[in-house]
């Protein structure tokens, strides 16, 4: 059971990539990419979790309390913001592509071959 968090991270990685590779709609594809990325959040936070540890905020717990790793949380914060920016940019591209190509199907774009 204690492998479950890592297994979920791996599963999201795999299922997200499956979605990206087989997507028929650019908007759907972008969302699948966020699923892949959410695998990294779970992995990071699961790595830094300490059994029975508190959140690393010493507002109302004593200074020597057992807390979970604060570094992974910092990294995940950055990661979440990065995801939002990538989504915004990709959506903008998808919308422009739809405007010019008249389709959102990545398989029908294909202006450039070979």
């Amino acid at each position, binding site marked *: *059971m*204690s492998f*479950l*968090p890592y297994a*979920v991270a791996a*599963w*999201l990685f795999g*299922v*997200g990539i*499956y*979605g990206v590779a087989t*997507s*028929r*709609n650019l*908007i*759907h594809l972008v*969302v*699948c990419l*966020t*699923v892949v990325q*959410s695998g990294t*959040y*779970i992995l990071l*936070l*699961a790595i830094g*979790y300490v*059994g029975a*540890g*508190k*959140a*690393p*905020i010493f507002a109302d717990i004593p200074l020597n309390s057992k*807390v*979970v790793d604060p570094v992974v*949380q910092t990294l*995940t*914060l950055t990661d*979440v*913001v990065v*995801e*939002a920016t990538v*989504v*915004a940019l990709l*959506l903008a591209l*998808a*919308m422009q592509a*739809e*405007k010019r190509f*008249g389709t*959102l199907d990545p398989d029908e774009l294909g202006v450039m071959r070979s």
Partner: protein
Amino acid sequence: MIEAFQIVALVLVAASGTAVVLVRDPLRQAVVVSFYGSLLAGLFFAFQAPDVALSQIVIGSVGVPLMLLMAIAKVRKRELERERDE
């Protein structure tokens, strides 16, 4: 070591993450992904990461789905226009 509510949250996240990928219609997917974002936020609370959870709520279950909805709305509108033109 792993707590029961963490297991529940993890299973829910895995299931809804799969659902996000399998729902191929963007509009329905935007709804599912908003739900997924909230579940993730819950999981982060369960992992003792309230800062991340708060970010996840504002970005993952509000910000990103809003952008998605706006993008979908624009696309739908153009589709309608194209149909009208034909």
